[in-house]
């Protein structure tokens, strides 16, 4: 499963790691929806670290779509919230 960390690149993560990542991911979503800034920062850091350590980075010239995408490490809660809206990210 290819995961993209925005601003960093793509990482190939084995399926076996997904349950653990999912727990953090769901926690992160709850924190975004709850507006918990501190929790968001902590969980995002933990999730990114988990993806980085579990995965193998893809070469920069590889052209493969990512199945999962994560916000950049320094993204704010508001930025991520905006991205999760349907009309966010890419206009049109």
């Amino acid at each position, binding site marked *: 499963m290819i995961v993209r960390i925005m601003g960093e690149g793509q990482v190939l993560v084995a399926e076996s790691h997904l349950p653990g990542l999912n727990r953090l991911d769901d926690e992160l979503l709850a924190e975004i929806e709850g507006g918990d800034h501190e929790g968001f920062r902590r969980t995002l850091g933990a999730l990114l670290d988990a993806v980085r350590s579990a995965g193998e980075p893809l070469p920069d010239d590889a052209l493969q779509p*990512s*199945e*999962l*995408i994560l916000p950049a490490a320094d993204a704010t809660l508001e930025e991520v919230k905006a991205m999760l809206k349907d009309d966010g990210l890419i206009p049109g």
Partner: protein
Amino acid sequence: MSGVMKRMGMIFRAKANKALDRAEDPRETLDYSYQKQLELLQKVRRGVADVATSRKRLELQLNQLQGQSTKLEDQGRKALALGREDLAREALSRRAALQQQVTDLETQHQTLQGEEEKLTLAAQRLQAKVDAFRTRKETIKATYTAAQAQTRIGEAFSGISEEMGDVGMAIQRAEDKTAQLQARAGAIDELLASGALDDQSGMAKDDIAAELDRISGGTDVELELQRMKAELAGGSPQQAIEGGKTDESQQSRTQHKFDKQ
């Protein structure tokens, strides 16, 4: 999974697909058109078969009529041999009526045969066209698929797709950060120059250094005072200390005090 990772991925993909699928897929249209052509070809072929069946039926009828005609001719010949001219006349007149039918049917047969030939030719031409269309369709489809792949790659490099949206954002982020850092560096320089912000680089004295200076300065004053007092009391303070045995303990105590400092 419905977390952030999945949702962001889905949104990115949806955006990329939307850009791609804005025009309907011509491959589906081509396949549909080909299907329609095949149906048309099938109809023409069925028409050819129908005409051929009618022609065969006419041929059977003609054979039958010709058989009857031959029979009537034989009967007429026999009647004439038997001296029954009236019967012979009847047979021959019936045969003439049949002959008229045969002629009509032969005309019909010829028309049908002409039509059948035309239809067969049309079917053959249509078949050739459908075959050509199929080849063309496959070429177009392959070209379209290639173009689509190229579009995907193009999008990846022009910023529509996830890949580039990301890179674009990363660049934007980096630019913002640089600007922010530059602005901050400029502001710090100004604050330092105006004296509003203490320079922590060690060029200026900090609080602790200032306090130490103050303390050591104070000690010098105390020492100076002691020395002056001793001078006033008579002789150098060195002599006074060395001369008086009672002063030894005091000297060591003073020494100790200095060591501590």
